């Protein structure tokens, strides 16, 4: 079965509002309502174990549904057969800015992270899209651009936050070791190198492990979604493999760019480690 034809299936067509057939996993309103039983399970567990998370769960699930519906409506305007590409590129650009903003909010202890995160995420996106579309893995259409870019940015965002926070924590906690290297006359980049390396490994190792274990422990999300939509399993596997390699590659690119950009932000021009106060306790 043609991968592109499968990817082009209108998952958000009016058929979405009709109860799914048992074969394809399309979800209608009744099906969606039925899945709320699982949310009720979480609330019940929270009450039983006195976790006080019930309200938080309901709010989060409600927000998620509303956000997804809004995104779905928006995507319906942008993505589709015959749609021009420029609205999709605008969507991707907005995604990038928002992802960079989220990164800076999640790692406020890193000065100037918004700009650096934007550059790192953009680099990951550029490399990944160039490979995916330039080498013809997917055809470049509005229907393939936004989901692919979203997948790359979403996963690279996690790596960005992990690298940034871990690097700062390591440099802060091992300040004496960093300054002992600086005191020997080493430049900031060399003094920070073991700690940046540790941060990169921390970000990449889980991705590598997930890639190694894929299919053995659980079917990953992209493949599950495609199977539920009725795509041939081997086609779904091919797409999933592409997705995995995209995620791994983008994590590596993001990490590499961050590693270069963090040094000037965390050290002064005369190779002194800046004060790195701990972030305020959110409680």
């Amino acid at each position: 079965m043609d991968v592109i034809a499968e990817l082009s299936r209108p998952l958000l067509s009016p058929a979405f509002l009709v109860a799914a057939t048992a074969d394809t996993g399309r979800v209608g309103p009744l099906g969606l309502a039925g899945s709320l039983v699982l949310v009720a399970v979480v609330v019940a567990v929270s009450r039983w174990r006195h976790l006080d998370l019930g309200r938080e769960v309901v709010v989060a699930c409600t927000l998620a549904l509303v956000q997804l519906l809004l995104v779905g409506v928006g995507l319906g305007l942008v993505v589709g057969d015959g749609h021009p590409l420029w609205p999709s590129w605008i969507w991707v650009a907005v995604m990038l800015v928002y992802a960079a903003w989220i990164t800076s909010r999640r790692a406020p202890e890193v000065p100037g992270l918004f700009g650096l995160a934007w550059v790192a995420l953009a680099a990951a996106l550029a490399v990944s899209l160039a490979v995916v579309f330039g080498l013809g893995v997917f055809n470049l259409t509005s229907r393939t651009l936004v989901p692919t870019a979203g997948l790359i940015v979403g996963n690279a965002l996690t790596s960005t936050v992990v690298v940034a926070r871990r690097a700062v924590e390591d440099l802060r906690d091992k300040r004496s070791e960093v300054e002992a290297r600086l005191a020997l006359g080493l430049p900031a980049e060399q003094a920070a190198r073991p700690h940046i390396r540790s941060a990169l490994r921390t970000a990449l190792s889980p991705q590598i492990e997930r890639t190694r274990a894929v299919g053995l422990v659980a079917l990953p999300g992209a493949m599950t979604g495609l199977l539920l939509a009725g795509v041939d399993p081997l086609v779904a596997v091919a797409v999933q493999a592409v997705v995995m390699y995209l995620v791994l590659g983008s994590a590596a690119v993001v990490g590499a760019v961050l590693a270069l950009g963090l040094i000037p932000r965390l050290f002064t021009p005369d190779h002194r480690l800046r004060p790195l106060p701990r972030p305020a306790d959110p409680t």
Partner: protein
Amino acid sequence: MAALFSFEGVAVAFQGVKILADVDLELPEGGCTVLVGPSGSGKSTLLRLCNRLEAPTAGLLRFRGEDVALLDPLRHRRRVGMVFQRPIAFGGNVLDNLRVARPDVTAAGAAEALARVGLPELFLEREQATLSGGEGQRACLARTLLAEPEVLLLDEPTASLDTDAAAGLERLAMSLAAGGTSLLWVTHDPAQADRLADRLVVVGGGRVEARWT
């Protein structure tokens, strides 16, 4: 001849807290100058200024007449070496640690560096993190000396050592001073200051309170 270090109205503040205020001080070349004072008095900050690990928020610091802010910081730190309060081990064995200071040091050169601080050659293969306090501090000194500094800053280097190890390190430092290396030694121990000092600077509350030659 210009002083080794000249502090001219030097102040250091961090987040509104004054650590050093209006320090005017000249530290001459040669011998051992001891900076003594209670914990939190600012004496370690004075030392860190000399190695450019800190920068003044006001005033001017000169090294042999030149503004430290205008010197190449990496070259300056190799000329003005620093040993910290606790021995700091980088990953790997002692030889790996020595090569952080001088990547091209040969095994023979490394053995010579250890001999200079009274450690045997067989220590080269030992993991630096497994050395005792005294051994570790000597290994750190060997590492710093590989850069051939003209000045040695020692920030309470015996604070974490037992009496014998401390005495050994003091003798070692004095031999370096006798060999022409200028020492700046920070301590909170008046007895140690008395033993070591060719000249004494008393630091208190972020200010220089007295000095004797």
